[in-house]
């Protein structure tokens, strides 16, 4: 699997672009299975790096969404409220929130596409 190189990744399987758009990875949606609900914060909410800011639900599991970096929510993908299956169809296009990044330096701590790919294959090896 090759991951888009226009963004950074977390070990909790979120991606974030340079302009602060956040979503979950293809690998994440695959291990969750059919996603039935996405719960997202309201515009204006402050999110903190490493802390949960929302949840994704499959039929029998709930997973927290962790903030890759800190920031303030500027937009929420409302379409996911009625069509959560978009995340399954194309996780790298189905963004969840856009944030105004508080400290761009925090981005440096995140994984590159190739590092993330390596991380995922190592994780699967366990």
């Amino acid at each position, binding site marked *: 699997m090759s991951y888009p190189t226009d963004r950074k990744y977390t070990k909790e399987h979120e991606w974030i672009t340079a302009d602060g758009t956040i979503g979950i990875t293809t690998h994440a949606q695959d291990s969750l299975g059919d996603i039935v*609900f996405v719960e997202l914060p309201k515009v204006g909410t402050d999110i903190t790096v490493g802390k949960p800011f929302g949840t994704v*639900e499959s039929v029998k*599991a*709930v997973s927290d969404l962790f903030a890759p970096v800190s920031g303030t929510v500027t937009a929420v993908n409302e379409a996911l409220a009625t069509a959560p299956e978009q995340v399954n169809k194309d996780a790298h296009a189905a963004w969840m929130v856009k944030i105004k990044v508080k400290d761009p330096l925090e981005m440096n701590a995140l994984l590159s596409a190739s590092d993330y790919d390596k991380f995922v294959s190592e994780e699967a090896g366990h």
Partner: protein
Amino acid sequence: MRYLPKSPADRAAMLQAIGVRSVDELFSPIPAEFRLQRDLAVPRQMAESEIVDWFKQRAKENGEGYTSFLGAGAYFHYRPVVIDALLQRGEFLTSYTPYQAEFAQGTLQAIFEFQTMISELTGMDLANASMYDGSTGAAEAVMMAVRITGRHSAVIARNLHPEYREVLNTYATHQAIPQKLVGFTDAGQIDLKELEKAVGDDTACVLIQSPNFFGTIEDVEAIAEIAHKRGALLIVSIAEAVSLGIVEPPRKADIVAMEAQSFGVPLGFGGPYCGVLATREKFVRQMPGRLAGQTVDKNGKRGFVLTLATREQHIRREKATSNICTNQALVALMVNIFMTVYGKIGLRELAKQNLAKTAYAADQFSKHAKVRFAGAPRFNEFVVQTSEDPYAINSRLLGHKIVGGLPLKKFYPELGHAALWCCTELTTRSMIDTAVGLVAESERSVLSKDAEPEEVTR
């Protein structure tokens, strides 16, 4: 032991197959010092006939054959015979929560029909499969409102069932939900002016009961307006479900927390009953309790499953909407069958009879005592104020095999010698006349003793 299906030979064969010499070996994980070496001191094994006799004796000591005017959250209505006939089918009685949908379609479809009828009756979009009872349901509704609004305090009507308020106190204490109580007017209804002042920007919800504890019907629309104006939700508790046959449902409420006992559930000395929550579609993911939903199977055939389970404790654990697991499914089935029997027309006619009996009784009582809260519409309960302590009146009534109204002093000291009386379709005119006659007699004798009657006519 007659419930155990094994012969000594079976047991011996099984022990041999397992490879142990005695059943005690199977209990060896229990440290020896904690193994019980004696018989439990419980009653000896009894024959079925003895068990039946014992409980029949207890029934005789339990008000069998008395006429009762008690309501206050537990109502004596007729239970159609078909309810118990169907309920005792083993496939309902002895099945588990329908997690394996393919093998539990009967229970699931019944829950779906229950949810539909409760939504229809309460005027809400949807309802859950049941909660423990009306009191815990109301407490859960308040916690739900706190989650939805992100606010922390609750405004509670004082004329909400006092025991519901007690339960809410217990639940709210550790959730850090401060409560404000709002009193009632001379009509027994919530004091709207006081309510207006009590609701603030941190109010998650206003919780009222209608018909309220005194039997009076609240102006739900006016209350909803006050709550919604400040962004708070309105929760309406309904303790007397039969009222929904003739009283406009609380369509402006955000959550209805209902006790459905009136719909075919025996009084049973207080339980098991059937709580249920109903709400608007947009709040469904914050609602506790099981939900059955319609879907299709691989071949496109209609079927039902428990759904939105991610709200529940077995998945979300400490983040669940509630810790509730077991609910009141079998009792909900009684309610379901009752609603089906009476249906669209019968529920209204039944409610009308309740209304008529109560109107007659209140009218008769008012000739000899004061009927409080006369200024507002009521359903099947009313408050009678007497010159004598109602406990004393009731103890005389007991001599005539009549159980009088519930004395209110314990819950509302300011009401003095007041008692809450209830009539249903099962209360006959002659029962009412007898009770009124006895109360009138006691009133006359008290009045003749006191030259200056006090408080009676005020």
